[in-house]
């Protein structure tokens, strides 16, 4: 233990994987930008055209990446936003409908229109299953093209309309290239900021561990709505620039093939990365140019690539570049919780009011999983919940944390009733939990996983995070410091920088506890935390739980290990067939006759 005690000071900070905040991670972006800026030295205007196109596509893909790569929503028909932006900009600049305006103002208007359209197209994702959403976006793409064809007064129908003319110095090939490159840089910065903020982590949590995201208080509809607005605006701006590049646009310019290019660029690049999809976009834009005979076959090529990536390299370019994932894990590591860090993280919280469950009844079909249950949790107390399989322990926990909606009964915190069936609102009430099967984002680092638990405590808004304003950097620094404290408290700080999917099962259980502690919970609900742990680990877990409760947190411990329960709990409730069989001090319960016959079996 000696080395662990001063570990915080001497422990070399584990290099974090995939964090664009670090200068090392910025390097590839800077190199790429330098190359892009030097491109005019070639003096070949054909290259200007290709590079401009790549920059424009990236403006769109940067936004789409947050939807597809981060949030895991399969928005396939994103060419619709490009179309919309192109026509909006062109029509406004031409002045056929409204008085003529400058192309830059028109781009701004297109961004607003695109944001609204992005939101409307995205809304089904909040209610519909994956395939349905993919279909809806595809349908939308078809509709936009058909409207562009039919609405001849405005769009010129099949004949088309002139694209916006950008004034000097953007009226030459290279001038326009630099304009688009500028937009691409801004897009990269905005998307990158969002990606490494708590919003980016929350999106990945929605993708890979939606249930855990809800428990951390992440409200999916609001978050996705922000991202759809952002991606829609980016897509429409890209459309405006695209129209400027084409000089003349018809509905035929916006083929389904483009949708495919955008979508596959994200997948080739790799999920949850910014640089990967950027390379993917460049690759897919250049590919048909380099291999000119392939141009006619490009859709087939894209389709084959899509199949190949999904089946062979699901991690994409980002996974190939991610050198950190092969870094060796510390040998002979052990989980050594350090309660001292708990004090720094939790402080001494003012005692929360008791939590009360009254007469809860929950049926699944004809089965009464919980049958008129009363339960009272007190701050600073470890409350054990035991009972045979199927007695309703985990179900009770799921009722408290809002995943199940009981048919009858009430749930209150002091005098305040808590709404039933609202999992995403529990974190705001100071209720944190862990899961029987750890719900962890395997592709994120341990540190990032733990930081997700503190999502709710961030103060910066989505816009502030996008621009990385002072409040955002303060948030980020504080969340990271807290997460390191939480990891110290559970004894895993040495693993902070490793991908979570490389950890052992027992370690993931402690990661979940660290994530729950980020909330500084009034009540902590632990669902069989000792399952799969060694006896030494169980002993340390018991110490940790007791230590957490001394800081004023009430703990509800669902467990099968009766020894652990009787050792650390101040109060024990025994369930059988959804009813309370016995409750009281551990010694009383242990002596209870029915408990002995029904459960302890002694």
């Amino acid at each position: 233990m000696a080395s662990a005690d001063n570990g915080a000071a001497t422990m070399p900070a584990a290099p974090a994987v995939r964090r664009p905040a670090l200068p090392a991670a910025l390097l590839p972006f800077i190199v790429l930008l330098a190359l892009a800026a030097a491109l005019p030295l070639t003096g070949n205007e054909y290259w200007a055209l290709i590079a401009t196109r790549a920059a424009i596509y990236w403006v769109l893909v940067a936004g789409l990446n947050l939807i597809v790569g981060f949030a895991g929503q399969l928005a396939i028909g994103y060419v619709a936003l490009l179309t919309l932006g192109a026509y909006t900009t062109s029509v406004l600049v031409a002045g056929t409908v409204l008085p003529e305006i400058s192309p830059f103002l028109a781009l701004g208007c297109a961004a607003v229109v695109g944001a609204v359209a992005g939101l409307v197209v995205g809304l089904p994702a909040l209610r519909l299953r994956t395939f349905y959403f993919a279909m809806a976006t595809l349908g939308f793409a078809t509709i936009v093209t058909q409207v562009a064809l039919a609405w001849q007064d405005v769009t010129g129908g099949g004949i088309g309309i002139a694209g916006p003319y950008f004034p000097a110095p953007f009226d030459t090939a290279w001038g326009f290239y630099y304009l688009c490159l500028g937009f691409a840089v801004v897009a990269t910065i905005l998307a990158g900021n969002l990606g490494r903020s708590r919003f980016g982590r929350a999106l990945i949590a929605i993708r890979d561990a939606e249930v855990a995201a809800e428990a951390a208080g992440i409200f999916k509809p609001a978050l996705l709505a922000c991202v759809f607005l952002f991606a829609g605006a980016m897509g429409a701006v890209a459309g405006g620039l695209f129209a400027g590049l084409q000089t003349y646009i018809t509905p035929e310019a916006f083929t389904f093939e483009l949708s495919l290019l955008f979508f596959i660029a994200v997948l080739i690049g790799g999920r949850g990365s910014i640089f990967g999809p950027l390379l993917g976009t460049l690759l897919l834009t250049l590919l048909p140019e380099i291999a000119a005979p392939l141009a006619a076959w490009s859709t087939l090529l894209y389709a084959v690539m899509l199949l190949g990536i999904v089946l062979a390299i699901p991690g994409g370019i980002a996974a190939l570049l991610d050198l950190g994932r092969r870094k060796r894990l510390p040998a002979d590591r052990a989980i050594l919780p350090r309660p001292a860090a708990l004090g720094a993280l939790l402080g001494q919280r003012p005692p929360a009011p008791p939590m009360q469950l009254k007469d809860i009844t929950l049926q699944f079909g004809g089965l009464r999983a919980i049958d008129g249950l009363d339960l009272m949790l007190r701050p600073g107390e470890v409350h054990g919940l035991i009972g045979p399989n199927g007695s309703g322990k985990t179900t009770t926990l799921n009722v408290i944390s809002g995943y199940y909606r009981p048919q009858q009964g009430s749930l209150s915190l002091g005098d305040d009733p808590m709404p039933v069936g609202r999992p995403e609102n529990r974190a705001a009430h100071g209720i944190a939990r862990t899961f029987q099967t750890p719900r962890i984002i395997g592709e994120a680092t341990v540190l990032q996983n733990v930081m997700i638990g503190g999502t709710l405590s961030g103060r910066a808004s989505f816009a502030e995070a996008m621009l990385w304003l002072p409040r955002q950097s303060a948030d980020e620094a504080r969340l990271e410091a807290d997460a390191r404290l939480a990891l110290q408290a559970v004894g895993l700080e040495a693993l902070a920088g490793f991908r979570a999917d490389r950890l052992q099962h027992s370690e993931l259980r402690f990661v979940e506890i660290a994530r729950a502690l980020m909330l500084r919970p009034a009540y902590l609900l632990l669902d069989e935390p000792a399952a799969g742990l060694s006896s030494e680990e169980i002993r340390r877990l018991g110490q940790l739980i007791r230590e957490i409760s001394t800081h004023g947190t009430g703990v509800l411990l669902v467990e099968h290990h009766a020894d652990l329960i009787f050792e650390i709990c101040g109060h024990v409730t025994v369930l059988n067939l959804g009813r309370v069989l016995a409750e009281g001090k551990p010694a009383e319960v242990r002596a209870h006759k029915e408990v002995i016959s029904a459960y302890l079996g002694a």
Partner: protein
Amino acid sequence: MLASILATGLAMGAVYALIGITYNTMFATSRVMSFTAGQLGMLGGVFGSLLMLQWGLPLIVALPLTLAACALVGVVTEFVAVRPVLKSLDQHLYVLTTLAVALIIQQITAIEWGTEPAPFPRLLEVGEGVWHEKYWLPVAACAVTIGGLEYLYRRTLLGHAFIAVAEDNFAARALGLPERNLRIGSYALAGAIGALAGFSGGQLLLAFFANGPLLNFYGFIPVALGGLGNNRGAVIGGLALGLFQQAANFTVGGIFSSVAVFVLFIVVLLAAPQGLFGAAASRRV
């Protein structure tokens, strides 16, 4: 006008319903919604035109050959796009793999067959006006298919095995049912049903490589409305969609009828995500 709305509407509706059944048949044994459903319909038209008009084969040979060819495409889909991703169904990778296979089918057709719509022959030379065979053939095909499937699922041992796998894959395997072969079988069956949709509706849709995405979308709507895996729901939904679409077509014009269908689709789905006849989703925790 009412007669032609009814004739066209029911005909198109029957084609959509058949594509919907194609989706359902694949979904039943694999829990996968496949983007290839519409492409199978497209292939039905293209193969029909190829075999009968270009190669001059009679209907009695061309139809079984078309069905067999598409059944083979269905089996290939199962091997390439479905089996590899079944292990991680919750990641929805099948959306990507089946989309890729669907696009490969479409592009190969475009390259080999051409990108212009080609004519489809008259099959039986029966009926004129609103009783033209192109209107009632799809309806007949739909009726035969649904009758055949009902017989298969309710009366035969093989059908019971299909249902067992569809109800509870895991338990069916534990009972010793050849789950993998049944899944391959259902993809072959789906291929044949999709081909029948395109073949019977060939005189309306023509042999055109770009029919795939269209059929994909309009065939999916009956499934979404009727509830996943519900064939009767798909037939009702398909016919309703066909009639609604044709009515809108005749009254407000083609472009706005597609907008109307799309809006209706989104609104209904947002109001009832499980479909009008579907069951609620299961618990997640």
